[in-house]
């Protein structure tokens, strides 16, 4: 691995993690609930990308499967959150 590769991966990681920090700030500050729901959704996407990046850096192809699973779990959580926000109850 040459030094150019390392710096390229570092820059990618820092950009993605910087986006994650911004999403976290929005989740904490978010004036409305929808800001927070969006922030959680963005964070789930960041998790998928970070896992894919870690798999690329460490050359572990199995990470891609886990990344796909996390995308599914994230979708489930977002749907549950929005249903709660919409009706304030789950059992009609």
């Amino acid at each position, binding site marked *: 691995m040459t030094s150019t590769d*390392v710096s390229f991966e570092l820059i990618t*990681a820092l950009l993605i993690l910087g986006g994650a920090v911004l999403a*976290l700030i929005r989740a904490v500050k978010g004036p409305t609930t929808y800001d927070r729901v969006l922030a959680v959704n963005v964070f789930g996407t960041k998790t998928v990308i970070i896992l894919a990046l870690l798999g690329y850096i460490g050359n572990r192809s199995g990470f891609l499967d886990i990344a796909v699973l996390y995308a599914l779990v994230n979708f489930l959580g977002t749907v549950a959150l929005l249903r709660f926000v919409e009706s304030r109850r789950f059992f009609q």
Partner: protein
Amino acid sequence: MSDPVLLINVILLMIAVGAAIAAMWTRDLLGAVMLMGIYSLLLAVEWANLFAMDVSYTEAAVGAGAATILLLTALTRTGTREKAGPNFHPTALLTVIVTGAMLIYGTADMPRFGDPQAPATVNVAPEYIAQNVGKVDAGEDGPENDFGDHVPNAVTAVLASYRGYDTMFETAVIFTAGVCVILILRPLSPSARRETAQSQEGA
């Protein structure tokens, strides 16, 4: 900092600590649930990075998925605002510090990581690896199989032969917990629903 994985780990854990502190600090319980979801996702990535794939799957499915839904269901009964109260509890802080100090003191007796003379590796592990476990003698009239009457995988052998009762009663505990959750969070009768709505408006 030439190792990108190390840098990613450090930043991920710092974000996780930030999310946990924010979840404790906020008074909006709905926001706290979402922040705990973020925290769970970050921990799941860390577990995956430590090659603990089973723990990682569990953390993502239970921590970010099921626990979020469970907490939201609880919020349908409690309302989404935390009551105003003191932010600092000296007794709780003291309990946490004492418990943490005891746990750290306990690690002094643990064997070094990867120590070949550790008790966990010298007592029964050689038997497990030698495939003596899980060997079920089918007898002369027993069914033929390709594995010489034992389970082909060491982990499966331990799980099936030695931890069978453990797993069975774990299932019983989880079933009991599930029944309790359903009883507490079951759909309310119309009169009880009105009472809950009134108490939420009063709070």
